[in-house]
């Protein structure tokens, strides 16, 4: 089994990466969603002692991904930053500044309240939804206002529960690929897992394991 899972969807070739990101080679683009940077400091500021190594681990994950795919632009599909301004914002800006040749873009999500006052130099703010070729990029599928057409989104922190023989079960983060909607798993570590409940036809779910993305097809 290879690391990433290659799919053809809505006339595009897409790679579902085990790093919980999506690679779109034709557009030279990495798509990531729900990083929730700054959550650690936000909690700590309010007296809830999340260990700050958690934030470092997230930053390292992002850095490793950027190094692994050196030529790609990056689009964040919302909830990049968890809440109000705090020190982790500087850390993120510094990190992005280390990759000067690349474009970083953000489709803002409901948590991205920060960009209203802090226009980041390294980050281009896009409309939500933002059309790219025949596909719209958005944060929350509700942002599409039920306009038809294919879209890629985040927001839901999707996970999947698998059941096997002898009553075994496990839960994993997952990509959900519907006919006209693709939901990314949350990139951030400090997020939970939820099963999306959409009235749509599921084509495939890509369960994320440390060893690779596994394609699961519904019966």
């Amino acid at each position: 089994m290879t690391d990433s899972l290659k799919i053809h969807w809505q006339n595009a070739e897409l790679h579902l990466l085990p790093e919980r990101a999506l690679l779109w080679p034709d557009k030279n683009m990495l798509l990531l969603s729900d990083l929730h940077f700054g959550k650690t400091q936000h909690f700590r500021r309010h007296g809830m002692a999340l260990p700050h190594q958690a934030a470092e681990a997230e930053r390292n994950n992002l850095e490793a991904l950027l190094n692994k795919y050196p030529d790609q632009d990056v689009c964040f599909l919302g909830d990049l930053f968890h809440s109000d301004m705090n020190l982790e914002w500087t850390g993120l800006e510094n990190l992005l500044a280390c990759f000067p040749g690349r474009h970083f873009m953000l489709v803002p999500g409901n948590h991205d309240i920060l960009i209203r006052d802090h226009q980041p130099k390294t980050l281009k703010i896009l409309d939500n939804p933002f059309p790219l070729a025949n596909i719209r990029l958005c944060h929350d599928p509700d942002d599409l206002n039920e306009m038809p057409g294919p879209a890629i989104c985040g927001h839901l922190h999707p996970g999947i529960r698998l059941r096997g023989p002898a009553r075994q079960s496990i839960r994993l983060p997952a990509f959900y690929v519907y006919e006209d909607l693709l939901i990314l798993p949350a990139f951030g570590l400090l997020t939970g897992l939820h099963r999306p409940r959409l009235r749509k036809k599921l084509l495939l779910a890509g369960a994320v394991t440390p060893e690779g993305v596994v394609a699961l097809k519904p019966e």
Partner: protein
Amino acid sequence: MKHSEKWFRSLGWKAQKFQKQAWESYQAGLSGLVNAPTGSGKTYSLLLPALEEAFENPGKGLQLIWISPIRALTREIEQASKRAIEGMGVRWTVGIRTGDTSQKERAAQKKQMPHLLITTPESLHLILTQKGYPAIFRELKAVVVDEWHELLGSKRGVQTELALSRLVALQPGLRIWGISATIGNLIEAREVLLGPTFPLEKSRIIRAEILKEVRVKTLIPEKIETFPWAGHIGITMLRQVIPLIEKSSSTLIFTNTRNFAEVWYQKLLEAAPHLAGQIAMHHGSVSSDLRAWVEEQLHTGKLRTVVCTSSLDLGVDFRPVETIIQVGSPKGVSRFLQRAGRSGHQPGMPSVIYFVPTHSLEILEGAALRAAIETGKLEDRIPYLRSFDVLIQYMMTLAVSDGFRADSLYKEVRKTFCFQGMERAEFDSILHFLVHGGESLQAYDEFHRVIVDDGLFKVESRRIALLHRLSIGTIVSDQMMQVKYLSGKRIGSVEEWFISQLRTGSVFWLAGRNLELVKIQGMDVLVQNAKQQKGAVPSWMGGRMPLSSNLAEMLRRKIDEMKQNPDDPELSALIPLFDKQKQLSHSPNAMELLIEKIESKEGCHLFVYPFEGRFVNQAIASLLAYRLSLFQPVSFSIAMNDYGFELLSDQDIPIEAALDSEIFSTEHLRDDLLKSLNATEMARRKFRDIARISGLVFQGYPGKPVKSRHLQSNSQLFFDVFSEYEPGNVLLKQAYEEVLDFELEEARLRRALERIGKQDIVLRYPSQVTPFAFPILVDRLREKYTNENLQDRIRKMLILLEDD
């Protein structure tokens, strides 16, 4: 005690021996414990000497604190004390301070405290969050902790210990008294209450010797062959229960869960419709108004029968009823006796309690209970040790009000039973946690909780102080939704997940009513009476208690007796079942441990029967799973009940090879237990409460909207992050300690394994599921153990996408 005695005489009462002893001891300035059952006059054993003292000099401000574990009981205590205060003519005022106390009343209390304050451990801690709180306790003479046995084995007990340590520090001569029902470790109960350094010569244990004969009558199914092996709730026994109700003027039917109570109530009415109007139900999720009504109706004799749960185990002035029926295993001797004690208070007459088994093997428990009662050995309530989450909450409380100094607080809390062994390094790491938010320091950090100002630890942020006040308490429950009629009248509460399965128009049962869901409004579920008769019955989450070790021991003895000529009626009734067990597999004696290996469509099942209660069975199961996995990578599902456990795997379980290698050995026990994945899962669940109590997570509170933007989080996340980045965190360690002490019952487990080590192991390969195995198979509480690679597991999973 002339005023008290005069008042007693005016009512035609006569002081009992234990009351007189308590009066004397209290007046001599001693502290201690009064051991007396509900309804025996225990309240007046400690209230009257305080009033006697107050007769001459009522004092100014708070004189006596009465701590009760339940809000509902505070009203009863208030009434009882007002009666005595008025009867004796003492110039005292009485007040209640609980979560139900109105803002207005609180403000009034802040200005002028009543002489007698009736409160709960949580509300007492809330008083400690007020600035300048020491002034409130300036004239405090004594504290009485009611129903101490209820608090003792819980974190609320720790909370009580901490509050008492503060009050004693403020008022060194303070008298502390507890009231407790009979438990196995009364002496320890006193030590926990007073603290391990309290001089014993200044304390007493006073026992009300109200011993009564208790008779256990097991209702035995007419045909054991057709009585369900498991999975039932004893409804087939209704035919024998109804005549008991009919010939009795008042009956309490105790069930183990709220769900059972609802179903029993419903089925009783179906089977005996003429009882309508004379039967009601009572459990923790029925609204307090309704519960009060039921209690009142039972007192006045208007109700004949109440189906209830442990919600009716407590109560100050609960009058005796004629008949007591226990449905399903009571799990322990003390609880069973306490319930039996509710019946037949005519002098010299024995209390009779009927035991209704809910599946066939449970019939044995009737015999085991009787034998256990004869030995007179009651269960211990195990006090919590080193509950750092409660300590952190308490330190926050002090930091919010007047602040604290590290050295003196350390000395003070070390005087409590819970923290007597706490080392200074541990205390310092908690301080560090409160001030710096973790082990490692970082140059740039915005952690903000407690600050140190010239040696004084205090909270400056008003927002953090507010969040703390809202989070005081150690009872962590799932979000409950209030069920109300459209008129606003409250019926009870159910958990959110249950309602999420229903739609408008769905019908469900609650408090014995058939209700139709009209709409959901915030945290309220609005309903109307339903016309349709079929509906869902809610079940409530909540731990299931294990069989106590006393009762488990008796159970094993009774199983052994099955080999001889049993003379208990329960045992004789079970002969056909044990014959079936023998025919399919084997019926073990006291020197044997039975293991059954069965193949089915599901995979390979291994059933093992230690008869040790569900927690210890589960611990042996996860130990076995871990040790088996050392032979080859394998995944197990684990199921258990009080009698035994099942390991289920999709591949063959190499038990034959494992039995040759000391698989039940106590060597490396703690290590192996902690390595089993189960321990992590259990610790994760324990951590949920710990994170909440210590203020690590804030989840918002129903009815108290606080702006908490982006602060909602779940404890699971914290558990994972701590495990990875701060494995030495005190709260994380506490979660594992609690698992070892309370879930895996390490001490009891060790004894069980030592016993197994001396037993012969009998391995059988039955062709079908046996009577011993069946109840476990039906039990759905499953745990997982695996050491297989994730990819391999997924490949083997039926690729099924299922709802959670």
